[in-house]
């Protein structure tokens, strides 16, 4: 009996230890990896190190965009001990207009009992967040925002930051969008021991991958000129009662964008919100500012020679059911090239393009890059409209810039080839970037400036420059020129297509040119949309162009 009990007890102890052994085998062998991970989670932490987003500088190394750490306020209803309205009054005292800025979100939050939590988008400064952190039900999340020392200056070019669908802050439009990858940098990570409170413990086992900060962008933007341009455009819109106006100024030899701005009248505020940068994202018919390019093509392709005389300019042209007439309904018989440009003679231009022929015209059209994007380093550039069929009437109207749709930057880029001794150069906003490595050393990356493709030979360039200078000096607008520098420019007015039909009332008035004619310092395009005081480019865009040029003479 006794030995049975002993053997039973022995068996029970054996089974007991067997169960323990099996359980240990389960936890220590089978579940080993899972438990190791859990243990590491309890004793270690992985933290993401946010990189600093790169800054954007003007050509004089003044920051146009830098960073600002801010705090976003979150409200959790169940933890509120005071009335929300009283809390918002407190916040308004610290940060005026906070409630007003977030009115729509707060109204929804207050009226919806199901919604317990809200994070508001208005950034708060650290000192304000510290003051409010004691209020029950409020919490703060650190975030970063862009800070613009010059406020809205050059906003057309700079772009902005916003959250994408995944909630990540990324760049949209302009430079922020185009250079997002370079500006944002790369996150770093730190793997280290932590104590029970989650605070860092010093340990030799810390693993650290430093963050790589974003690259800074150094642009061609001249903030003094940009400032002047924005002011002059605003004044121009008011003076000529226009819907909008824009201007682009380019360094002829490098293609660097010195200034660019688009300004909308207050009545066009809705449209301005939709179109972020009309310089690259809208199409327009350039009108007569296109004529110098057609004459250059004609001379360069030897479609005409420099002694061209328009024998047929004494009457309107009829092509099929269409009649081409001059803008002032006047005829200029026996005009030479200079007079065709000076008088902005549509009839003369129609004969010139006929002499070039469609094949040669399209060949140069492609060489000038008018059938594709310029490739400027701004996000949002759109393609021009490329025609597949060119009936005779379309070729004739193209000679005075009607019936073709291109972006303003494309027009400026093509015209700049005349200023740049016949070389077509890609427009660019950024001159160089600085790559900050994890160790803090800076390796600047300088963009190589390529001379571009040669489109027109030197003889053509000299001839077209003479024509343009003559047309400026002998035109009624010569009095607008206040400086001694020579100007090679051309005005243009095009009718606006509304629902497929040319409007009788709305025009796009433009003025394009460079100065001085030899070794130019700038090429500029000014366009005024739908001016009410006068429909013509010569009366609206040209005065703005010369006012800006007067300032450029001092500032460049």
């Amino acid at each position, binding site marked *: 009996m006794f030995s049975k009990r002993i053997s039973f007890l022995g068996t029970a102890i054996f089974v007991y230890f067997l169960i323990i052994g099996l359980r240990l085998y389960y936890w220590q062998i089978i579940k080993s990896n899972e438990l190791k991970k859990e243990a590491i989670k309890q004793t270690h932490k992985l933290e993401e190190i946010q990189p600093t987003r790169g800054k954007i500088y003007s050509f004089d190394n*003044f*920051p146009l965009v*830098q*960073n*600002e*750490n801010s705090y976003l306020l979150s409200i959790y209803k169940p933890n509120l001990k005071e009335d929300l309205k009283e809390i918002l009054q407190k916040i308004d005292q610290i940060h005026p207009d906070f409630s007003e800025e977030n009115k729509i979100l707060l109204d929804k939050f207050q009226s919806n009992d199901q919604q317990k939590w809200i994070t508001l988008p208005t950034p708060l400064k*650290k000192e304000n967040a510290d003051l409010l952190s004691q209020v029950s039900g409020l919490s703060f999340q650190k975030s970063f925002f862009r*800070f613009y*020392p*010059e*406020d809205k*200056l050059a906003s057309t070019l700079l772009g902005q930051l916003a959250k994408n669908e995944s909630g990540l802050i990324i760049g949209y439009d302009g430079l922020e969008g185009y250079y997002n990858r370079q500006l944002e940098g790369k996150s770093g990570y730190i793997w280290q021991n932590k*104590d029970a409170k989650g*605070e*860092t*413990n*010093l340990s030799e086992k810390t693993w650290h991958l430093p963050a790589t900060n974003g690259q800074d962008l150094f642009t061609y933007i001249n*903030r*003094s000129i940009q*400032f002047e341009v924005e002011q002059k455009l605003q004044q121009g819109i008011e003076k000529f009662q226009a819907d909008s106006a824009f201007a682009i100024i380019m360094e002829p030899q490098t293609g660097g964008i010195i200034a660019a701005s688009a300004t909308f009248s207050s009545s066009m505020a809705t449209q301005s919100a939709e179109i972020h940068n009309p310089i690259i994202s809208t199409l327009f018919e350039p009108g007569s500012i296109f004529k110098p390019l057609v004459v250059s093509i004609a001379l360069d392709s030897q479609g005409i020679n420099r002694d061209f005389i328009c024998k047929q300019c004494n009457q309107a042209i009829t092509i099929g059911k269409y009649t081409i007439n001059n803008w002032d309904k006047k005829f200029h018989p026996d005009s030479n090239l200079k007079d065709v440009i000076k008088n902005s003679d549509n009839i003369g231009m129609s004969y010139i393009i006929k002499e070039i022929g469609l094949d040669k015209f399209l060949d140069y059209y492609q060489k000038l890059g008018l059938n594709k994007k310029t490739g400027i380093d701004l996000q949002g550039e759109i393609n021009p409209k490329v025609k597949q069929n060119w009936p005779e009437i379309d070729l004739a109207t193209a000679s005075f810039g009607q019936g073709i749709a291109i972006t303003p930057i494309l027009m400026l880029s093509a015209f700049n080839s005349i200023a740049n001794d016949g070389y077509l150069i890609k427009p660019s906003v950024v001159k160089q970037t600085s790559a900050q490595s994890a160790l803090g050393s800076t390796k600047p990356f300088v963009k190589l400036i390529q001379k571009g493709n040669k489109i027109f030979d030197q003889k053509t360039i000299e001839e077209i420059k003479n024509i343009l200078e003559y047309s400026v000096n002998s035109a009624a607008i010569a009095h607008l020129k206040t400086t001694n520098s020579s100007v090679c420019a051309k005005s243009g007015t095009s009718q606006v297509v509304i629902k497929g039909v040319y409007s009788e009332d709305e025009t796009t008035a433009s003025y394009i040119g460079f100065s001085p004619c030899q070794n130019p310092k700038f090429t500029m395009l000014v366009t005024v949309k739908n001016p009410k005081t006068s429909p013509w480019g010569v009366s609206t865009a040209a005065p703005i162009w010369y006012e800006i040029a007067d*300032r450029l*003479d*001092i500032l460049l």
Partner: protein
Amino acid sequence: MKQKTFIAIAIIFLIAQITISFISSGQIITLNSQLIEKTDKINQLEQENQSLENQYTSISSLKHISTQYDLKNLIPIRQKLDLTK
């Protein structure tokens, strides 16, 4: 006798180990608190630096200058020095 000596040595080792671990853990705690303190200080200085940088660029901006001073009465300098002569 041997057994007593052995126990005494064991106890001495045990006490020494406890003492050393107390001292070193105290050091670790001190160093950890220093680390937290200095990390906070760096963050605070970075914040201040950024704030000062933003303030400095704000007051030296064209926007600030144009609102603080009446620029309409100023006459632009048109003359240029030719330093090559």
